[in-house]
């Protein structure tokens, strides 16, 4: 064999050759001084890395703390069906109304007249009126659309 084994040497050291390939490789190594020397070095390097000690984490491993809002952990065990309570729905509607009040207040340049309109709606509406649909029909959550 004229060519040297090169990366076949690592595969030979790792036992990753087929029986036929291994027989050919060992026959070559037996007659090629360079490949025999290379195999010794490959095995030495391999041993150095394999003998590296395990490394313990300096602090207990974590999974990044609490997940961001809205992200569920992996379904390790079946979760109970989620129920959307009526109170939660009302809270969402209330939050939407509050947000509509706050947004113009943040952008004061454009928000002044709109804020006044919203206050007007709020102060003149009967108790049971659907405030959200009056001021922002498009903002209704899906579950509230009729």
């Amino acid at each position, binding site marked *: 064999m004229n060519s040297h084994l*090169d*990366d*076949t*040497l*690592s*595969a030979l050291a*790792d036992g*990753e050759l087929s029986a036929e390939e291994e027989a050919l490789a060992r026959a070559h190594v037996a007659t090629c001084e*360079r490949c025999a*020397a*290379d195999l010794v*070095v*490959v095995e*030495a*390097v*391999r041993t*150095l*890395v*394999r003998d*590296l*000690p*395990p*490394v*313990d*984490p*300096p*602090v*207990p*491993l*974590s*999974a*990044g703390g609490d*997940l961001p809002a809205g*992200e*569920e*952990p*992996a*379904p*390790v*065990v079946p979760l109970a069906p989620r129920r959307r309570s009526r109170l939660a729905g009302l809270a969402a509607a209330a939050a939407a109304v509050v947000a509509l009040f706050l947004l113009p207040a943040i952008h004061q340049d454009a928000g002044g007249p709109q804020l006044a309109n919203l206050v007007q709606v709020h102060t003149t509406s009967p108790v049971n009126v659907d405030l959200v649909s009056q001021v922002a029909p498009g903002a209704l959550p899906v579950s509230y659309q009729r």
Partner: protein
Amino acid sequence: MTGTEEQPVPDWEEVARRYGRFLYTVAYRLAGSHDDAQDLAQEVLLRVRKGLETYRPGSMEGWLSRITTNVFLDEVRRRRRRPQDALPDDPDRVLPAAPAVDVVIAQQTLPDDVQAALSALPDDFRVAVVLCDVAGQSYQEISESLQVPLGTVRSRIHRGRALLRTSLAVRP
């Protein structure tokens, strides 16, 4: 291995408790520092916790090695996109010639020296060597984890070892 069907993702705390040392060792050998290894291991456990990785019954070490490698290579690719952290785009083109054979591996090489030599390898070579010699993966498993041909795995492992040999060799 009982099949290829997906199974519920193992509990991340159980993974951390039983395989934390293995996971951290692979992460450390890849990343080369405790700071980066902790970030890497944390991201792996976060992916486990969020169920982002498909789990099939089999070797837990193999599964964790694959996730760890993917997270590591994702970070490498992210850094490559930033000019200040530019890395050689093709390690095959920047490799020095194989050293002469008249070098002798130091008999008393310290683990820190080996780690420094590992850290100096091109990323693709380091990943292949760590998966083979630290994680104990077969060439076939590495091929599947990295989605590269077996011949590429063989080449990367051998060329990685050739570079380690250069770094760790002492001349008589």
